[in-house]
């Protein structure tokens, strides 16, 4: 028979306690993640966006092995050729593996492709651009760069932002104040200018960076972009940590004897994680657009490499009143738009799924 508190004179009655426990076991509670996953699965648009993104990423990863024409081989005699649908020209010969410097893994895939398909390549299904390069191939290869840039930069901003914000929120007081003031100042500087400065400056020292430190222009690019986007993440994380710090469940954990480390990792981090994930999925599209923006200004990815930003730029430059090279604008825009749309929808879906305030409501 279960007793109540010692020396209290109250007898809880073992039977009742067991009954209560048995009854409680009947109601299956849901953890935050289970609830979120269920909601996400139920959200059709978000789910399909997720699937789409997975598919696209797979396509990008395996691009070297696909039988696409080279994204780089020039043919300066021709002007842009309109798209030729697959049922007219499914494929042709004449493939030559011309790329920029590939990683060894990619090189392996290319070799495998040559082994599989010899010199067969797909036809100009989406047309060619002003320098004779196949658009479909450029879009697929461009996706690799764009996705890589977006991920790297987003992760960079995440690393900086989460650390900064968590430290500020956790330490609180004057340090927090100071740290946030710095963020405020940086926020009001139109960072675009700093970025442009930074990149032009970095251009100047490119040779040293590459030879001496092994840092190529792209790495700098990622770091610069990441360094620009961390501000919002820091603010958000700090706000979250601040509000969590004072919540009762933290006190309860402490009262139950949890160590600081345990509190931070078991209780605080998962709660912060959800908001970080949401912001990450919303930062990635912003970074992709930013890359496009910089490429437009000539400060981004350089030829012969391809990115969606460069494609969009090429497209808008080819717009002239005499000949309508619509495919150069429409297809890259469709690819970029679809991906960013999917990211945004997924981000929205994640936010709806993870926001505790919406739990249980619809």
């Amino acid at each position, binding site marked *: 028979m279960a007793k109540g508190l010692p020396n209290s004179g109250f007898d809880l009655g073992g039977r009742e306690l067991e009954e209560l426990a048995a009854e409680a076991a009947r109601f299956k509670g849901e953890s935050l993640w289970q609830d979120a996953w269920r909601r996400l699965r139920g959200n059709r648009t978000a789910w399909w966006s997720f699937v789409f993104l997975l598919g696209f990423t797979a396509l990008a990863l395996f691009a070297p092995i696909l039988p696409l024409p080279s994204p780089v081989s020039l043919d300066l005699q021709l002007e842009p050729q309109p798209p030729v649908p697959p049922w007219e020209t499914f494929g042709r010969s004449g493939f030559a593996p011309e790329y920029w410097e590939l990683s060894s893994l990619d090189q392996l895939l290319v070799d495998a492709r040559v082994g599989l398909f010899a010199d067969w390549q797909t036809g100009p299904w989406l047309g060619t651009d002003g320098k004779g390069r196949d658009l479909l191939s450029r879009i697929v290869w461009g996706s690799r760069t764009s996705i890589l840039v977006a991920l790297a930069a987003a992760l960079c901003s995440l690393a900086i932002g989460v650390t900064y914000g968590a430290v500020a929120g956790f330490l609180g007081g004057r340090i927090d104040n100071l740290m946030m003031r710095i963020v405020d100042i940086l926020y009001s500087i139109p960072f675009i*200018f700093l970025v442009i400065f930074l990149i032009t400056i970095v251009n100047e020292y490119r040779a040293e960076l590459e030879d001496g430190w092994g840092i190529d222009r792209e790495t700098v690019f990622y770091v610069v972009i990441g360094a620009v986007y961390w501000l919002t993440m820091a603010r958000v994380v700090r706000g979250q940590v601040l509000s969590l710090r004072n919540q009762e469940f933290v006190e309860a954990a402490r009262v139950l004897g949890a160590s600081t480390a345990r509190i931070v990792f078991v209780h605080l981090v998962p709660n912060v994680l959800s908001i970080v994930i949401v912001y990450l999925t919303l930062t990635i599209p912003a970074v992709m657009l930013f890359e496009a923006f910089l490429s437009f200004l000539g400060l981004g990815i350089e030829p012969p490499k391809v990115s969606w930003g460069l494609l969009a730029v090429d497209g808008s430059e080819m717009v002239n009143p005499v000949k309508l090279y619509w495919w150069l604008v429409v297809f890259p825009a469709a690819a970029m738009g679809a991906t960013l749309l999917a990211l945004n929808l997924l981000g929205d879906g994640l936010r709806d799924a993870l926001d505790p305030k919406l739990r249980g409501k619809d």
Partner: protein
Amino acid sequence: MLRFVLRRLLWFAITLFVVVTISFFLMRSVRGGPFDGERALNEAVERNIQARYHLDWPLWKQYLQYVGPVNLGDTGPEMLGGDGSDPFTGILVFDFGPSFKYRDFTVNDIIGQSLPISVSLGTIALLWALVLGLSAGIASALWRGSGADVTLRLAATTGIALPNFTVAGFLVIFFVFLIPVLPVAGYGSWKHLILPGFALGAPFAAYIARLTRTGMLEVLSQDYIRTAHAKGLPPRLVILRHAIKGGLLPVVSYLGPATAGILTGSLVIERIFAIPGTGSHFVNSALNRDYTLAMGVTILYTVLVYGLNTLVDFAYTLLDPRIELEDS
């Protein structure tokens, strides 16, 4: 109230100081000067230029000259050995110095010429953003779940997903080639700004639509809306008087970042549509190492963004009686 303004000014001064100092030393300490790209100049001319732009001075002196207010050069106040013809110079007296690239003009001239155009463009973009965004957002919220709502939301998300120069490209294809209605490039009248304004404002319209929709939906689910209905107010009145105010609050606080974004986006749009605004000058100045022009534009934009943000914060406190005028 006064404390609020003073506090803001103080932070602004600090921000500006940081920006100016960092940019100044960053630009000057990097290898490569403003005249590198030009034809090789003969010695005399080069010395002349060095003297005129004070490039032969030590850095700290150039900095002080740039900030002002006292002119440390030959035409400065007599107290310092000059001839007294031009005692004041520098940012603190709103003199941004001569342009390095366009040597017949001062930065003030260039900015003065191009700024009104950029401001007009920005204003039109903001108007597009507000009109489109608010109506789409409110319609979406009121007819939640309907076909119209879904379409509008999709349009909004697409607007955010495309870079503004792609939207510009589509617009040009549409309104210039397919349906030749509007002028496409250059600047002659306000008509030239309609299309660029739309391209510039489109992503912000999309974001405002989403914010409005979410804000309105949240307001509509509040208890006080139920009270309003229980009081027997006609639905139109419930929306207009009770719901809209609360629903618009997030949009008001978004106006700050939105204007900053419009300024940024103008760099691209001005290039595409060949509009002689300040934005195009900025990018060129960074590439040309035209220090003074680059600094001038940077400072200008910092001032604009900061001022607008302060105004927005102020407006927000006017709208929401629960918020007090503090530096939050």
